[in-house]
């Protein structure tokens, strides 16, 4: 995990919280099991009430409620419609086994290489021409499936200029593993020129 965008960063935070919590729960349960086996008297005279009621019901319920509701809130920020409309929209179309991108600003098109501005949220409209694919740039955030007949939206942002790898996440047949694409995040001020060159058919 090496997040390079706000979406990936907040998921990384969520992961570290869950990882720490999960480790603690695992350790606590193991200790309880070991104590139950070796020194049950430490659990009191009437351990079943403590174990089943508190360990099985009450504690997990509290932890789960906290986790589920914070995940709701985060999910709402990541995939809900809240926030300002994204200034930039790119159509990503999957086809066995390649990706093509259309930039709605000026109608430019690119294949296998995706050009985005750094520091700006971009909204992707993802669909497929044939089977189901998955649009995923691991370091920028979550993925969305490219489903034929449907158009799915996902909003991603690269914080810094640079090159990132993109993959097809949903199994799509023999070329699944080679169905990669490259993401180039350009500095914001250069981005318009890049799209102009793309539209003119020149190298960006």
């Amino acid at each position, binding site marked *: 995990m090496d997040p390079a965008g706000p979406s990936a960063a907040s998921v990384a935070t969520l992961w570290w919280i869950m990882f720490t919590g999960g480790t603690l729960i695992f350790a606590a349960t193991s200790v309880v099991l070991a104590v139950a086996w070796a020194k049950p008297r430490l659990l009191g005279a009437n351990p079943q009430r403590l174990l089943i009621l508190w360990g099985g019901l009450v504690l997990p319920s509290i932890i789960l409620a906290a986790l589920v*509701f914070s995940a709701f809130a985060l999910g709402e920020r990541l995939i809900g419609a809240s926030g300002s409309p994204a200034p930039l929209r790119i159509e990503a179309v999957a086809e066995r086994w390649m990706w093509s991108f259309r930039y709605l600003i000026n109608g430019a098109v690119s294949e296998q290489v995706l050009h985005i501005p750094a520091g700006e949220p971009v909204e992707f409209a993802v669909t497929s021409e044939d089977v189901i694919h998955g649009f995923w740039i691991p370091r920028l955030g979550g993925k969305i499936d490219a489903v034929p007949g449907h158009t799915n939206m996902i909003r991603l942002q690269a914080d810094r200029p640079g090159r990132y790898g993109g993959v097809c996440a949903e199994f799509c047949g023999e070329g699944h593993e080679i169905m990669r694409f490259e993401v180039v995040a350009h500095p914001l001020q250069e981005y318009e020129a890049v799209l102009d060159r793309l539209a003119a058919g020149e190298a960006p």
Partner: protein
Amino acid sequence: MTRSSPLLTLAAGFTIWASGFAVIYAVQGVGCAYGWDLIALGPVSLLRLVLILLTVATAAIIYVVARALSGAIPGKEREASHFMLSVAAGAALLAVPATLFTFAGVFIATACS
């Protein structure tokens, strides 16, 4: 009912939960397809209002059933029917918070993409 179909009573609470689930999920899908989220009713959309009402109704029905089941538990501790009805009532009672928890999203989450 409790005499002839003990298995049904065991399943009663969560069967209502499951039916509520099916209805709420279906209404959500149909509502999005037909644009009920675009009809505003005061602070919420028509779709959200319907979903909230369905959630509350599901929880309320299960609660009534749970009360009825716990009222029907016979006194004799060792009888099988005592066991069955107390499990049935317990399951139904637990299905009430399960309902509110499962559908809590209707109050906050974005209804349609």
